[in-house]
């Protein structure tokens, strides 16, 4: 990524006005990030409840902004239209049904997870798994999967910022100048996440979401009129997708899915929807809400973001009609640059700056929450469970803060030293992996019938199957591994999402083994929850007073 090439071969040089606007808006949110520590100030930030969950007191609207800012990441904004531009509807537009079916799904189980987590002071999904199944092994599997799946996702946020900077023309003639802006941006992010915790992304999310809505609405009204209206957008997309690919001889992509692609479209949408709320960062943002019903109310107002995402996806097709040429600083075509390039070509430069800022700031919110969530998971489920069982709240908060720095440093090194494609491959794998924790977490919210060892074996088989299958997908153009997330579904014989196939295999194994282990009366493990815990709400005993009850731990000797 740090190739020594002259800047600005394909992007028309540094865009001074756009860059100035971008830097000003960036400075604004940095200030807000540091200020956030005073927002809804707590008596003490020295616990994971305060630092890592914002004191668990976010209401419906803050949660809406926070979850919206968290789930719809900069990478989404870059990658979904890029997929529409390059490959068409199956790879790109599935994001719309995905983010629609998502909300009925989380409506069903998230309130239960909120209740039991607040009754027992759980901060991460692995905390719940440990309490429910009395199994440190299963909890460790869930927490490691969470951390592994989150790391490349953070790295991809950097890729989103890089795409914007590249099109804005930032990138000197040497590696240092090229990477320095990214380095500064991430150092600032790390600093205010360290001091303000989850409050920082919650405050910045307001700016991010406002900018995103503004840019998308302006873009979908203004841009199509510049290229001859929606009619010509759709006919240009249809023509491009039907044209044979020079390498494979098959059509370039899908304008509308054909009969061979129904399974692919449906399993991508459904599998991704099941997976999304297994990521630690989604659960962190949910648990920070102030009541059981906050998340349910949010399930009916969060689809506003799905609508915006759908419009954004269509901008990939607008770029086809506009003849956008996404060419990187290295002079090679790079579909990931298509949206920033479209903005730079079509908008006046000051508004291109606003649009760039929307994407770049869009990277900060998820990156902050993801690093906090990964830090929470490490602190609670590895540090406390395996390294220092008697850790005080103050020690937990301290470790959490340090790990959040480490995670971001790792992501930065990952992106600066390795090929971007690695981050994309790992993120693809991350989605497959995180889905394998679904049975242990979600089924566990309803029943103890599944046996802890059966879930562990099902998880392991799903992980291995998913990883091997994804590795063996060969990209027809480049002949590289990890060529995509689709593979033939065994017995059905149609292409489908690998994660979903792995999930079904995982489920069958967990069910069969549970039946056997339960029949053999193998010890099921101690369950510390009671049925009523899954329906508790704010105001019930222990739900609000978690921190206060343990005041002696907070203030105790380190």
């Amino acid at each position, binding site marked *: 990524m740090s190739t020594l090439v002259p800047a600005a071969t394909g992007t028309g040089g540094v865009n001074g006005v756009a860059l100035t606007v971008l830097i000003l808006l960036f400075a604004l949110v940095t200030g807000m990030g540091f200020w956030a520590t005073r927002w809804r100030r707590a008596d003490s930030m020295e616990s994971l409840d305060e630092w890592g969950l914002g004191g668990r007191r976010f209401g419906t609207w803050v949660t809406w902004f926070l979850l919206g800012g968290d789930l719809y990441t900069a990478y989404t904004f870059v990658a979904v239209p890029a997929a529409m531009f390059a490959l068409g509807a199956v790879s790109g537009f599935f994001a719309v*049904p995905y983010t629609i*079916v998502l*909300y009925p799904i989380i409506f069903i189980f998230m309130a239960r997870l909120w209740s039991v987590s607040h009754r027992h002071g759980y901060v991460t999904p692995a905390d719940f798994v440990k309490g429910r199944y009395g199994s440190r092994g299963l909890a460790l599997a869930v927490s490691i999967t969470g951390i592994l799946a989150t790391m490349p996702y953070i790295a991809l946020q950097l890729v989103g910022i890089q795409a914007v900077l590249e099109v804005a023309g930032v990138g000197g003639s040497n590696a240092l100048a090229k990477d320095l802006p990214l380095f500064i941006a991430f150092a600032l992010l790390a600093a205010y996440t360290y001091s303000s915790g989850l409050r920082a992304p919650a405050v910045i999310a307001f700016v991010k979401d406002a900018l995103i809505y503004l840019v998308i609405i302006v873009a979908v009204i203004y841009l199509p009129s510049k290229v001859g209206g929606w009619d010509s957008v759709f006919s240009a997309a249809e023509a491009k997708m039907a044209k044979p690919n020079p390498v494979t001889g098959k059509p370039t992509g899908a304008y*509308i899915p054909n009969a061979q692609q129904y399974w692919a479209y449906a399993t991508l949408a459904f599998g991704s929807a099941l997976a999304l709320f297994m990521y630690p960062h989604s659960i962190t943002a949910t648990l920070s809400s102030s009541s059981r019903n906050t998340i349910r*109310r949010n399930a*009916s107002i969060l689809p506003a973001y799905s609508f915006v995402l759908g419009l954004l996806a269509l901008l990939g097709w607008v770029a086809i009609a506009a003849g956008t040429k996404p060419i990187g600083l290295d002079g090679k075509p790079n579909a990931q640059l298509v949206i920033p390039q479209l903005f730079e070509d079509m908008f006046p430069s000051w508004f291109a700056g606003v649009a760039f800022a929307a994407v770049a700031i869009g990277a900060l919110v998820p990156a902050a929450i993801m690093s906090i969530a990964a830090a929470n998971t490490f602190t609670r489920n590895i540090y406390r469970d395996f390294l220092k069982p008697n850790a005080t709240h103050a020690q937990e908060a301290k470790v959490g803060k340090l790990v959040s720095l480490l995670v971001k440093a790792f992501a930065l090194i990952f992106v600066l030293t390795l090929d971007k494609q690695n981050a994309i491959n790992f993120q693809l794998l991350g989605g497959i992996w995180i889905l394998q924790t679904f049975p242990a977490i979600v089924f566990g919210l309803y029943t103890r019938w599944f046996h802890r060892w059966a879930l562990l074996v099902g998880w392991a088989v799903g992980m291995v199957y998913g990883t091997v299958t994804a590795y063996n997908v060969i990209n027809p153009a480049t002949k590289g591994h990890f060529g995509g997330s689709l593979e033939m579904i065994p017995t059905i014989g149609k292409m489908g999402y690998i994660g979903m196939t792995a999930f079904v295999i995982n489920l069958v194994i967990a069910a069969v083994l549970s039946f056997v282990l339960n029949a053999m009366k193998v010890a099921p493990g101690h369950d510390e929850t009671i*049925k*009523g815990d899954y329906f508790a709400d704010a105001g019930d005993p222990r739900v609000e007073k978690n921190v206060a009850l343990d005041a002696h731990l907070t203030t105790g000797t380190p």
Partner: protein
Amino acid sequence: MSIDSEVDHDTVPPANKGLLAVAGVLLALPMIALLWVSSYSRKDPELWGFPFFIWYQFLWVFLCSAMTYTAYRLVLRARPHRPMSDDRTRTERDGGVR
């Protein structure tokens, strides 16, 4: 609140099963509709130049939102919150573990 001490909290709070079932149907409909891809992978009828495939899925954003909100109201009514008492097992379970 006064009968708290009499309630066994290791049970599922009582609910109106009929209303819960209706809510379940409302939540299932968007999933079925959108996973049934062959029902909408068509170009016609177009709406304002948008292919059916595109505008139909946009339409479901609003339908799903309305159905989820209705389900929310129904669930609130179907299973009123049962306040929890400070159960006696608390100290034993909490004791120093956290």
